[in-house]
């Protein structure tokens, strides 16, 4: 098992939502669901997080914040969009200020269905995101290796 799968640290941002999904995310930390079993820690600090959990739709005011949090996370990173709102804007989709789901602002890796999403499925989403992260990590390593080789070759040519 790669290290990322064993210790996915989370940051949770509640965008424009009814707070239903938000509460379900917190429920994941309670003794009943116990997200720490999977090595998860909810950090609240993007610089320490690997997986970004977003609940709710994105509106014009919070779009820069969603983007900023995403940007501040170290590479590689994954995004989990939780609930109908985070998928498409949900019941808020038609509001004048809502720009849509999370994907309207940042790339999403996993969608968790539900309104509200169940804690079980949220945990499932996190575990899947961790697997995706593992793939991303592999890919990143490969490109880094290739880069390094390329640089070496360049050096040799000179």
């Amino acid at each position, binding site marked *: 098992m790669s*290290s*990322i799968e*064993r*210790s996915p*640290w989370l940051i949770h941002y509640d965008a424009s939502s009814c707070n239903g999904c938000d509460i379900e995310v917190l429920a994941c930390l309670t*003794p009943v669901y*116990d997200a*720490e*079993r*999977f*090595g998860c*820690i*909810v*950090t*609240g*600090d*993007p*610089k*320490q997080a*690997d997986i970004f959990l977003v609940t709710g739709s994105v509106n014009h005011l919070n779009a820069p914040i969603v983007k900023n949090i995403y940007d501040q*996370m*170290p*590479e*590689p990173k994954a995004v989990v969009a939780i609930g109908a709102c985070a998928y498409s804007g949900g019941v808020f989709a038609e509001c004048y200020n809502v720009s849509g789901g999370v994907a309207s602002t940042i790339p999403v890796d996993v969608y968790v269905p539900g309104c509200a999403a169940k804690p079980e499925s949220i945990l499932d989403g996190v575990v899947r995101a961790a697997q995706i992260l593992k793939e991303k*990590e592999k890919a*990143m390593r490969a490109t880094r290796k290739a880069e390094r080789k390329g640089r070496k070759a360049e050096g040799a040519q000179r």
Partner: protein
Amino acid sequence: MKGIEIYIAIAYVVLGPLLGGLLDGFDRVITARLQGRVGPPLLQPFYDLRKLFTRRIRPVNRLQLPLIASHLVFAVLTGVLFFYGSDILLIIFVLTLASIFLVLAAYSTGSPFSTIGADRELLLMTAYEPMIIIALVALFGVAKSFNFYEILSSAMPIYLYLPGIYLGLVFVLQMKLRKSPFDISASHHAHQELVMGLTADMGGPALGMVELAHWYESVYLFALVLLFFSSSWVSAIVGLSVTYSLIIFLDNVTARVKWQRALSIAWLVTLVAGAGNLIPFYLISRGTP
């Protein structure tokens, strides 16, 4: 005991993190059980650390990483000197030096969370340092030595002579180990008012170095506690496990104090339990040189 100190010091450099990580792992499992959870695997801290070092981060400024690395270097150096048998009073000052590098790293970012975290960390240092110094002086008073091994092999039931100082030390260890009620500068748990406080702007390897330094530190802090119980194997094992459980227990049952209070409470404890123990001890031991 002569001659093997150097090997113990080397062993500490290699095995210190192992021990420190395990202490942390047990802590997390026990805490989870206390809260009715299954909790992470025992080796979780090691998984975390490994992961942190695979991350790719961009620092906030060019000073941050060198300062954090210096923090790690001096935290390890503190332990090495400690197990090499240098003067433990001197070592406590080196420990302060290590902490100052971390505080400076946090200050350098200029970010509000890091800055407040750094301020609070300084406050905590001010709060715990007198107690640690008094504890060391008292240990010297009993064992007439500042050398770790000489105090260790003095084989005296020091906890009987210095009960107040032992309790005061455990009290300030809560601060040094970033445990509740004194986890006001940085915390392992989210959802606190300062985000991650001191470490708010540190991710990936930077945080990894801070964690690693913390493990190194916790090993010699527990070695310090061991000195109080070195009279026999039984008392050593009992004493250490009681201390360890006490720290975890307090972490779980107490709420975080206000930072304004941390200093006054700690100083009060230092005065009452620390100085209150030291002065009668001096009076008694003066008669028996």
